């Protein structure tokens, strides 16, 4: 029962959505909106699940005085540091408007943390290109050559390196050509492949063949 009911639900919901694609008549035309909104609602509730989990793990660390317990306390504190002003002092639904305490925290704490995390990638990209991008074989060489032309062709440096060439052979033009033809072809092949893979996986789920996502007994 515990496994069969969910599989049946998945199958029915999936098939009814596929059918509704071909039927413009009410109520089929409403199904897509309704199911997607349900999805959002369930996901929103699931956030609660995640947060309880996070708080539990952090507080556990603190109670049991595990290694780094102090940082567990920081997690809990910073969680409430944004949640309390968010619900309490930021004007309800207008909570994100400039001028609210929630916005202040967002602007001066959340944004710098997030964008610095993202910016770290620049360093890792550089070190990865030094240590990992090797012309080991024909395939890797192709990858490197394409990357080389695109990287230089897409910035002003490319112009200064190749302005003496006829316009069609300058780095920028070569980069454009790579993007427009071989890149587009490869992109399409992967895209179509992925699409067919997705269709096939969806079909397996609707038929109840792919069932790992349900878990066990």
């Amino acid at each position, binding site marked *: 029962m515990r496994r069969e009911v969910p599989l049946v639900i998945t199958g029915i919901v999936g098939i009814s959505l596929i059918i509704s694609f071909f039927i413009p008549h009410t109520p089929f035309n409403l199904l897509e909106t309704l199911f997607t909104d349900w999805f959002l*609602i369930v996901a929103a509730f699931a956030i*609660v699940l995640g*947060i309880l989990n996070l708080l539990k793990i952090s507080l556990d660390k603190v109670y049991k005085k595990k290694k*780094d317990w102090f940082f567990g306390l920081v997690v809990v504190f910073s969680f409430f540091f944004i949640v309390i002003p968010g619900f309490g002092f930021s004007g309800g639904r207008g909570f994100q408007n400039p001028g609210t305490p929630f916005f202040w925290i967002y602007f001066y704490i959340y944004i710098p*943390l997030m964008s610095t995390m993202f910016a770290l990638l620049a360093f890792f990209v550089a070190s990865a290109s030094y240590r990992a991008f090797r012309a080991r074989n024909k395939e890797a060489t192709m990858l490197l050559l394409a*990357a080389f032309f695109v990287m230089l062709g897409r910035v002003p440096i490319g112009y200064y390196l190749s302005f003496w060439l006829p316009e069609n052979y300058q780095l920028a033009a070569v980069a454009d050509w790579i993007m427009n033809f071989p890149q587009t072809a490869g992109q399409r092949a992967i895209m179509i492949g992925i699409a067919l893979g997705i269709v096939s996986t969806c079909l397996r789920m609707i038929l109840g063949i792919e069932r790992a996502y349900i878990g066990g007994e």
Partner: protein
Amino acid sequence: MSTNLGVWIAAFLTLGIMSFLYKDNPIYKFCEAVFVGVSAGYWFVTEYFTVFLPKVWDNVETAINVLQAEGRMDWFHWSYLLGGILGVLMLLRLVPKIGWISRWPLAVIVGTTSGLWLINYLVSNAMVQVRQTIIPLYVAGNLNASIGNIIIVVGTFCGLIYFFFSKEHKGVFGGAAKVGIWFIMITFGASFGYTVMSRMSLLIARMDFLVGTWLGLLK
């Protein structure tokens, strides 16, 4: 130098995260913990105001209003209550004995995506892309366009051969798969180039914040 307290806090956090590049240290761990806590809180508040309130609360309110004013059941809006119930069922996972009930909302979700995506990907990324690739191999009087079009058709074709699972890559078939993987690698290379561009931009903006906004060295 900036005189804004917020800018100083932001600068501290920026440097704290960057200190990870040297090595893992307590200041980084502190910033990391702040990030984890603040971001969880951010999502909690945002989901409440942008999903729970408008999707569950408002719709059920509409349904109740219709019932009171006109005395009829507005099934479409009532069904959002069912969405809310599914959400609550998700929370039952916290109760180990009846945790398995949370598979039902999950099944609804997976059913929704599998139904929607089957069609969407089949149409937009398979059928429409095949349609887009149907281009003349010979364009009168335009050698560049002809060569370009041939490259697109051949590249897409060989790329698809590479993704064949049920046939050994040998002989002509293997050769075509080889050409296919070249095209795929060129795509990855281009994509790598663009990614480098993207990441560097992010770092430039962060450095601009540190040197310009915070220290005020750029005029």
